C-alpha cells in the first residue's frame, strides 16, 4: 500500500532535520521503494538561497524507530541551477529500494549547510 508523507513548508536552519521529527512514516510490508522529493521553488527555498546547500536522505527502521538505517542520499547547492537538458532545476529527488522487513518505518532527513533555507516536499513509499 503506497503512502505519502508530506513535508510541509518550513524554514530549516543549518543542521540535521528529520521528517517526521520523531518516529517515522509507516511502510507497508509490500512496499519496496522510497522517494523523497524536495521543492526548491518555495518562498525562501533553495533556488533563492545561494548561500545554502543541503543533503537529503532516506532512512529506514526495522525496529519501530529504535534505530535507523541510512539508505541513500542526494545533495545539491543553493541558487538557480540550470542544465542544458532540464532547464532550471526546481526539485531534488532521491529514491532507493527499501530493504525487506515487516513493521518498517521510513523517514526523510535534510541536512542544511550554510544559511537557513525553506523546504517542502514529500516522502512516498510504494
Amino acid at each position, binding site marked *: 500500500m503506497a503512502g505519502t508523507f508530506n513535508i510541509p513548508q518550513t524554514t530549516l536552519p543549518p543542521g540535521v532535520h528529520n521528517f517526521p521529527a520523531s518516529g517515522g512514516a509507516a511502510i507497508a510490508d509490500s512496499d519496496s521503494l522510497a522517494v523523497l522529493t524536495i521543492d526548491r521553488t518555495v518562498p525562501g527555498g533553495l533556488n533563492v538561497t545561494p548561500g545554502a546547500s543541503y543533503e537529503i536522505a532516506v532512512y529506514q527502521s526495522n525496529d519501530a524507530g529504535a534505530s535507523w538505517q541510512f539508505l541513500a542520499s542526494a545533495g545539491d*547547492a543553493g541558487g538557480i*541551477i540550470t*542544465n542544458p*537538458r532540464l532547464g532550471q532545476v526546481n526539485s*531534488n*529527488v532521491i529514491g532507493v529500494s527499501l530493504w*525487506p522487513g515487516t513493521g518498517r518505518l521510513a523517514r526523510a532527513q535534510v541536512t542544511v549547510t550554510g544559511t537557513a533555507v525553506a523546504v517542502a516536499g514529500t516522502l512516498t513509499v510504494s
Partner: protein
Amino acid sequence: MAVAFDAVGPAGGGGATIATSGGTFTHVNSAAGNAIFAGMTCFSGTTNNVTAITYGGAAMPQLGAFVPANNVGTGGNAIYGKVAGLATGTNNVAVTFTISEDHNGGSVSFTGAGSFGTPATAFASAASVTVSVPGTTAGNMIAAAASFGSNGGTWGVSSGGTLRWKRDVSAGSGSDNTVGGTWAAAGGTQSVGFTNSLSDYWALNAVEVKVPVAGTTVTAGLATAAGAAGAPAILKGAVAGLAAAAGTAPAATAKVPVVMLPGVAAATAAAPPAGTGKKYLAGLAGTGINAYFTDQGGAPVLPLIEQAWALPFNAGRWNGGNWQSDIDAYMSTRASQGYTVWAGVAWGNDHVDSTVLSGGRTWDGIYPIVVNGTPGKITTGSETITLNNPFWTRVDYLFASAKNNGIACFLNLGMQYDFTGAPNIWYNLSTTQANTFGQLIAARYPQASYPNVFWFFGDDGSGGQDTYFTQMLSGLAAGGDTRPLVSTEQLPETNCHVQFDTGAVYITGGFGMAKATYNWAYTYDPTYLGIEKSYTETGTTPLPVVYGDGIWYGDEGTTGTHNYVIRRVTWWALASGARGLNNTCGPSTGGDVWQWQSNAVAQLTTDPNGPWITGHIGNVITYFTSLANWYKLIPDTGNVLVTAGRGTKSTNDAPGFNTPKYGDTDNYVCASRVSDGSLAVIYCGQSMSITIDQTKMVAGYTATRIDPYSLAATALTPGSTYVTSGNNSAGNPDWVIILKAPAATAASAGLAAGTAAAPAPSAAAVSGTTVLPGLASAAASAPAPAAGIAAPADLAAAYSDALLVTLSVTLGPKAGTTVVTGPGGAGSWVNPGNALADDGATATWAVP
C-alpha cells in the same frame, strides 16, 4: 586475503561509448581467478536494452536491477560481474543490445575476490547521489557505477572512494554520461556514490566484491550465488515478470526485488523483446487496383491510420522529459483501440505546431541534422549533413515501440511546410542534400531491422517539392532501401495521381505518378467520391487506395454530430472499397493528440470528441475484416449490383481547401462487391430503399443489416429490394447491409449466377507460373485454366494433395475474361470468376 583493485578498462579510466549495433572495449585482466565488474548505461527508455556483456567471450551476468535515470527513464544504468574463469591479458568487454544508441561504461577487475554481494541501487535528481551497502566486511571492496544526465561537469567520488572511470558524452538524455569507482569496505553499512558539479538525473548501482567464503572454491559462473550466503540477493526485477511491461512501466524495474536463494546461479537471460510475434503492416500483395496490404505473414490487413503528427518531437514535453513514456502510451493505447498505422513527421514544423523551435528541433532543442559537424539548421544547401544521434534515438524508440505494439509507421520525410516555412528544416535544402538524407535514412533504418517502417512524402503540396522527394527516394534506393510502400499526399481533392473533380492527372510526371505504390486519397468531400474515383481513374497505373486524410474526428466543430460525421467518413470509405482508412483525433474540440499537446496522453482514452476512437473504430475494423474477401471489394461504380435507389452522389471540389462537406443530407448509397459474388457491402448515410441484381451474388447468399455504430446484426430476407428505416443505436438513420455467401460455400462459390453473363475466356495464355518446390514440372507445362482446356494431370494431382499452387495468367486481348474452371472442376479455384480489368492484365489464382 583481501580483495584488491586489479585494473580498469579501458585503460586510462576514460570509459567507453558503444553506439552502433554493439561493440567492445579492452580490459587487461591479470589472473583467471579474478572478478570483473562493469557498468553500462542505456541512452533511452526505462528498461535495459543491453542483452549481453561478455569478457573474453565469457558472460558477465547482470547484478541487480537496471535503474532508470531518476526512475523516470531517458535511459539508466546497470552493472554486471563475473568471478573466476576469466581470460587473462588483454581481452574485449563485448556489449550487445537491442537499441542502437549510446551505451557508456567501463570495467574494473579485482584480485582475491570470491563473489559479489547484494547489489544496492538508488536514483536521484541532484548534484550527488549515494547509496548504502549494508553488512560489508573489512577486507572486501565495493564497486559502483552510475549514469548521469549532464556532460561537462566535474566528477567526484564519495568519501574513501577512488574514481575508476568517467566519461562525458552528451546531455541528450538522462544518462549519456558514466562514472565508476571503488571503495575499500570498512565493515558494516557503507555509503558510496558520486558527485558532479552539475545537477541532473542519476542512476546508481553498487555491489560489494567479497573474498571467497572460507572452505569454498570459487567456481566460474556462480558469482552471485556464492556471495549470497547469509543474505538474500536482490536480482534485477526484469528477470521474469517485467518483460511485458518493458517500455511502459518506468518505475517497475526498481521496485520489484526478486529474492534468490543461496546456491542458485544468477538468472541473467535478457527479457525477450516486447511484442514479439505481433502482426504489423509489412507490404502489399496482388497487383494494380486489386492489390491489398498484408502483414509480415502475408495475411490481408486494413491499415487504420492516425496522423499523430507531433508525437516524435513533442514526446516528453509535458511529463518532465520522459519521451519514452509518451511514445509507449500512444502506441500501446492506440494498438488496443485497433490502430495499425501511425503517420507523422519526425521533426517539428510550424504547421504541425506553431510553437515549434526552428530547424525541426524537438521541444527540448535537439536538432535532427548535424550540419558541418554541428547540430543545426541547413542554411546554404551546400553543407555536409549527417543525422544527429540524440534526435534519431527518439525515432528509433518510436519505431521499436510501434513494432512491439503491432503498429506500422508512415514517416513523412518532407511535408510541403518543411520546405516553404522559413523556420523549418528543409527551407534551404538542396537536392544533393536530399539525396544524402535519403542515404542516411537508409543506413540507419534497414528494412530488416525496421520492417514496420515506411516512407511517406508531401502533404498540402502541388508538386513543388517533388524533385526533393525524388532525390530522397533515390538516396534511399542508393542506400539499399527497397521498401514496398511509398506514397504521397498532395492537395485536398486529389490522390497520388489525379484530381477528383475532373479526373485529370494532377501533376503530370509528378512524384506520385511515378513513385507511389499505393494511392492516398485526400478529401474533405464525402469519402466515397475519392475512393470510387481512385478505382476509375484513367491515364495512370491504378493502385490500391486508402482514405488517407481529410475530415478528422470532431472536425465539424461543436455541432454535436462528431460521431455521425466520422462514422460516415468511415463507412463511406469502407463500403466503397478502401483498402485503408484514416481516423484521427481532431483538433476542433480541443484534441491534443495530433499536435501532442499537454492533454494528449489523457485524450488517448478520454477523447473530447466522443467515444468513436476509444470505443468503436477498432470494433468496426475487426468486424469489417472478418468478412471473407473484404480485401477484394470493388466499388459498384456502374450500378451493376445496386440497380436502383442509389440516391444522389455528391460532387468533388477542385484541388485545394474548400468548405468541407460533412454530408449531413447525403443519401448516396455506397456499394462494393467482390467480383465472384461472395461479398457485398452497402452503406448509406440516410435511410435507403434499393434494388439489387441478385445474380451478382452467389446463390444462397445471406443478407444482414448492421448497425454501423454498435455493429449489432439483424438478419434480413434476401431479395431484390432492401429498405432501411428508423434510427440506429446512435440515433441516426444510417445502416450497413452486408450480403455474403453462406459460410459453407464462401470459398468456392461465385459461379452460380455471375458467370452466366461473363464473356467467354478468349486467347488466354500462360505467361508464367509459380509453384512451390517440387512442382516445377507442373508449372512449366500448365496450360491456362480456361474453359475447354483441361488441367494437366500433375497439376490436378498437386491440387488434390492440397499443396499450395499459385498460377499466374496473362490474358490476351479480351478484357473481362473470366477463369471458370480449375483442375478440380468448376469452382475448384479459390477465386474463380475473377474478371480481369484490362487487356494484358495479370492475375493470380491460389489453390489451397
